[in-house]
């Protein structure tokens, strides 16, 4: 069985990542680039145990008392999207402090911000789609879409 995730968790993460990067850009706080690179590194490389957004959603669920999700989705596509975000923000950090290329750094930061906010508001996660397309090609169409498990068939936890 593949690892599954509450779909609200990546949406929450995308909303926070996108908003923080946008505010950082507008207010001229380049520190958000390495900070979010570290957050996304935890979310992508370490899995749920080191994903701050997973803890945040769990805490919000306890405090606000909202119920279980209607369905779980495969964890791999949003994790891949986090990896892409991590790579882009690491590149942005290196560009800003390593090469003094501020415009290039913020271009990468804004790209991540725009895609994260797009995913959070419309559900179109470009990084996730790239993962699904790559897998579709890799498996020659045998795994065409990402796995989603409706609530009534939820045996495994997120």
């Amino acid at each position, binding site marked *: 069985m593949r690892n599954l995730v509450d779909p609200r968790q990546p949406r929450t993460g995308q909303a926070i990542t996108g908003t923080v990067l946008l505010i950082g850009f507008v*207010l001229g706080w380049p520190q958000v680039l390495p900070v979010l690179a570290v957050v996304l590194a935890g979310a992508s490389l370490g899995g749920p145990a080191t994903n701050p957004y997973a803890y945040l959603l769990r805490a919000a669920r306890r405090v606000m008392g909202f119920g279980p999700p*209607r369905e779980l*989705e495969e964890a791999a596509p949003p994790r891949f999207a986090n990896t892409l975000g991590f790579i882009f923000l690491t590149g942005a950090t290196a560009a800003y402090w390593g090469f003094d290329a501020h415009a290039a750094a913020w271009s990468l930061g804004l790209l991540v911000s*725009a895609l994260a906010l797009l995913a959070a508001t*419309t*559900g*179109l996660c470009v990084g996730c789609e790239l993962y699904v397309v790559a897998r579709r090609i890799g498996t020659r169409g045998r795994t065409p*879409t990402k796995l*989603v498990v409706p609530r009534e068939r939820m045996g495994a936890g997120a």
Partner: protein
Amino acid sequence: MLVRVAVAVAALGVAFAAYRLWKRPPGRLSGASLLDLGVAGPAIVQFSTRSCAPCRAARPVLIEAAAAAEVDYAQIELDDRPEVAGRFGIRSVPTIVVTGPGGTVRGVWTSTPTNGEITEAARRAKPT
């Protein structure tokens, strides 16, 4: 500061404009015949995939609309027939169409239309 705000707004604008382009109804569907897919007459047809949550939400709305307009409802799973997506250029799901006589496509939506809108379109697609 104002320049940064303008740049941020522009970046978001570009992303959302690209999304709108992505969600444009596929041109190849307009006027096409779905006869070989088993749609022979006036119907509401949903192209979906198993992982598509909005498709599941749209299903009862579309079934209700089809019943109100007295036309058929059909659902085509693109997971099982990926070649259909390629043939009609379907980029996103749900893609919903209303067909008339002969399974000819009369209207295309890439998000769930309101019950009234789709019912009216299905009624208009019926032969008088």
